């Protein structure tokens, strides 16, 4: 009986995994919009399945939201100091902190397992992932160590237990970033917004630099890009080069 139950369990798991892969390939945007929303790269909340993952300054907290009326904290683990962002991708959580990128596996949702910690000597900001690569921005800023490092780094995460730097691009003052298909967008703070072609994922090629668009964070949807910055909220259609501004909501001065 137990063996039968186990087999059924494995079958169900396999079906789930297969359907999840199917969604990733074809229907990602529909799923996103109907079911779970899409956050910018500076988020501290991430939903996957029936779990909400939250990072505060020091820890990763798992909350079971299968019954929204009765959320339950199921796990909390200490990560380190200066935790800033969380990005869920394919059963993994990419966590950005002031000095490192952490990769957690959450195959067991209530026991996220630390796979690796990729450490920097200086400020390390958000991280996003696509395919076998993760993109991280490092910025030297006020209140942090005065090293002059402003870089976009490409990490090979094909072995998430041992991420390797395989590319880097000098930046001015990078903040949030977003990736979708061959497009990588990097916010350069008050310097503007950059668009890279990443058809070669390890060598991002800059194809646009919008110097008038002060930007902190982006959400690249399938064709449109949402950008937030000090002056307000912009939306672009990026199906062409150059991308076309669709709308702008100004902040109140």
């Amino acid at each position, binding site marked *: 009986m137990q063996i039968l139950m186990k087999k059924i369990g494995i079958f169900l798991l396999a079906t789930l995994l297969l359907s999840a892969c199917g969604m990733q390939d074809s229907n990602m945007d529909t799923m996103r*919009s109907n*079911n779970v929303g899409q956050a910018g790269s500076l988020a501290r909340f991430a939903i996957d399945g029936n779990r909400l993952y939250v990072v505060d*300054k020091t820890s990763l907290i798992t909350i079971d939201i299968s019954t*929204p009326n009765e959320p339950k904290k199921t796990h909390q683990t200490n990560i380190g100091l200066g935790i800033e962002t969380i990005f869920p991708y394919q059963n993994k959580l990419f966590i950005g902190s002031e000095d490192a990128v952490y990769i957690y596996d959450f195959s067991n949702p209530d026991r996220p397992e630390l796979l690796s910690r990729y450490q920097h000597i200086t400020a390390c900001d958000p991280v996003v992932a696509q395919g076998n690569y993760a993109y991280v921005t490092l910025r030297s800023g006020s209140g942090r160590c005065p090293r002059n490092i402003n870089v976009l780094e490409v990490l090979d995460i094909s072995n998430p237990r041992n991420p390797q730097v395989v590319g880097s691009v000098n930046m001015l003052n990078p903040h949030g970033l977003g990736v979708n298909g061959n497009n990588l967008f990097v916010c350069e703070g008050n310097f503007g917004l950059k668009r890279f072609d990443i058809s070669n994922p390890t060598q991002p090629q800059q194809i646009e630099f919008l110097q008038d668009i002060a930007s902190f964070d982006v959400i690249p949807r399938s064709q*449109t890009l949402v950008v937030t910055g000090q002056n307000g909220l912009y939306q672009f259609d990026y199906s062409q080069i150059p991308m076309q501004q669709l709308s702008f909501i100004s902040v109140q001065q």
Partner: protein
Amino acid sequence: MKKRLFQVFCVSVSLFFSCNKPESKLAPDEVEGYKPIYASRNSTNQISQLSPKPLKNPGKIYVYGNFLFVGEKGKGVHIFNNANPSNPVPLSFLEIPANSDIAIKNDYLYADSAGDLLVMNISNPNQVTLVSRLENVIPNTNFQVPPERGFFECVDNSKGIIVAWEKTTLRKPKCRY
């Protein structure tokens, strides 16, 4: 208290070495720094949906279906109908004290509020309702420490919960990180 002092000491030491820039450990008479802004716990129990208001200090962004959410750090979330990205229409402002993040699944919006987790039903975005609150589930939020390293006015929990930090001139501050 000893443990806390030890933590502060460790952080100071690590800063000292990582920055290669020795700084005096003595508090100066006057220095730029942050002081906490408190609110009573009671007032943070209120969630209200207000008519749209202008963006002031746009923070985090979130897209859910045809809706766009823009955070106003510490204050709440602006909700837009974004069915047409060429013309996003402001719907309302959701006031959430000491809020920094949201996430949404199946028309339920999850938001932090001063260490609590709030769950709201947004199936009717014009009439958002609070369905549950999990207290003190996020212990170490952005609001417990100042946004930048340096001197700050020490936290006094008896004054309430911290909803923001204000940059100001401090006199002989005893805390730093």
